[in-house]
């Protein structure tokens, strides 16, 4: 891919678990420069790291020093315990600064990791939402407002800079042995709640496949917004059965206030609006990405589900 050996790919949020997976897949063929405010112990030797905050002026140095051919932006935080202000500033201000740098330093490719969650689960949803469906997630869950804003910023950038190949990826729920997001954590519970009488269909993708989608997005000529799906669709109950969990059915009318109280007293790590994901549909149509990239996930549905219990169980 890289014609010039001095050219680098900048990866933000590289020290996260998905960032490490991406690094593993990418560092043998590309020179990677990582930006993260967290340390990245055990990083491959050929990866150069800048431990700093994207919002800082110093982050621009990366672009000044290096000939950057592409940026993969996955440095987006989603932590329901973080103050809304800090959350918003990190995600939105950080993204804005990064987009400015991409434009200023003539980077030709920008890949932004968004999420299929931006559409938001709702009883009104079509079973498979296409890329032009409205991003409604914040109407029921204000905590994801800045994730939508990041997606929108990237879309605006896509239109304002037709010469830069901007790719916005909206993968479905990412699962994996090292992933610590809400769906993976939920599926690791031995006694997870289900909302009594609700058993929505889910789409899942393995962390390796999600990382590979970002690598694929670097392909020259590719740009646009893409839903990225994994190995298919499966009912929530079948996922829990596959993992040998014992779901506890809770009536949805009491689940919200109950979880609200548990979350407030730090007895649960999920804020109540996350319940929408185990109540309503939030599935996407990934055919555009499948057709344009020839996308095929490498992990089967069984593997993907079992991966939350570690690679050993999946093998």
């Amino acid at each position, binding site marked *: 891919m890289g014609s010039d050996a001095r050219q680098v790919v900048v990866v933000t949020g590289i020290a996260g678990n998905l960032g490490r997976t991406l690094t593993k897949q990418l560092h043998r063929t590309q020179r990677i420069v990582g930006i993260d405010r967290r340390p990245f112990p055990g990083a491959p030797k050929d990866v150069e790291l800048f431990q700093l905050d994207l919002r800082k002026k110093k982050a621009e140095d990366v672009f000044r020093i290096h000939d950057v051919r592409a940026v993969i932006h996955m440095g987006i935080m989603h932590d329901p315990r973080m103050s809304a202000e800090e959350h918003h500033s990190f995600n939105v201000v950080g993204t804005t600064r990064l987009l400015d740098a991409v434009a200023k330093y003539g980077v030709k490719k920008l890949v932004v990791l968004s999420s299929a969650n931006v559409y938001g689960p709702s*009883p009104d949803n079509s*079973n498979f939402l296409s890329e032009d469906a409205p991003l409604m997630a914040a109407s029921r869950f204000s905590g994801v407002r800045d994730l939508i804003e990041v997606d929108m910023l990237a879309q605006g950038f896509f239109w304002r800079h037709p010469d830069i190949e901007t790719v916005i990826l909206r993968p479905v729920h990412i699962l994996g042995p090292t992933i610590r997001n809400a769906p993976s954590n939920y599926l690791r519970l031995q006694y997870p709640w289900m*909302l*009594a009488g*609700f058993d929505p269909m889910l789409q899942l993708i393995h962390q390796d496949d999600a990382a590979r989608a970002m690598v694929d997005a670097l392909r020259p000529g590719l740009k646009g917004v893409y839903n990225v799906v994994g190995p298919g669709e499966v009912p929530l109950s*079948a996922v829990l059965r596959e993992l040998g969990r014992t779901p506890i059915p809770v009536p949805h009318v009491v689940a919200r206030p109950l979880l609200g109280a548990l979350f407030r007293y730090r007895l649960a790590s999920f804020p109540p609006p996350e319940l929408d994901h185990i109540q*309503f549909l939030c599935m996407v149509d990934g055919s555009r990405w499948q057709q344009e990239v020839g996308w095929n996930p490498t992990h089967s549905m069984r593997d993907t589900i079992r991966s939350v219990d570690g690679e050993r169980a999946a093998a």
Partner: protein
Amino acid sequence: MLERVSEGLKGRLRQLTLDLAGPRREALEALAKPPNEFGVDPFGFDPDYALSAVAPFVWLYKNYFRVEAHGVERVPAGRVLLVGNHSGQIPLDGAMVGVAMLLEADPPRIVRAMTEKWAASLPYVSTVFARSGQIVGTPENCRRLLVNGEAVMVFPEGVRGIAKLWPQRYQLQDFGLGFMRLALETDTPVVPVAIIGAEEQAPALLNLKSVGKLIGFPALPLTVTPLPLPTKYRLYFGDPLTFTGSADEEDSELDRKVRVVKTTLQGMIQQGLEEREHVFW
């Protein structure tokens, strides 16, 4: 424990369906092949579950409403829109058309009905609907099913139809245009289905819409009887109608085509009413 009970019940219901199906038993069993390793298609339809879920409706079909179905063979193979008159306060009319296509069509066909969005917010109802092939009625969902070659049942009267009051029985209410747009877009034939009998099953004299709104119901008709009456159902499947034109036409042009369907269906209803001698048998 709970799982064992529900599995047992599921097995029994499945058996009941197969027993009631009589000679069609093998055809139905062949239909129940699992679509993927988890037993469902991408929409969440589980044919094996559906065989169990349909049991009460098969029983109603055979023994309660004693349904007579005419012209099922007119339904063409491949994608098709079944357009019926909606009534009866609870959507048993759609269920009976579905059972007819299962028991009388050769080979048996699964009808996918487009449900109210409201249904997706109800516990148990949402799950039973999804597993038995009923899908939230968005244009996008309908388009996808038709492109996949499915038979889709629509009631263009919507809530206006199902909640109609006694004096309006067998008078078609306003038709939505959406189904015609989809038929044009996907080049799908429309088969009108006159449903005689359902409109008398639950006479209602008053619709407390505003009270219904308060509790989140789309309508709240007060019925005279607590349960639907055992009226005799007669289903008449009409000849397929095909339409040509653009899906982006003006509403007035779509409306003209919709009126063709509506007039045909109203004519079939009238004929069905004239032919029948009694509401109950």
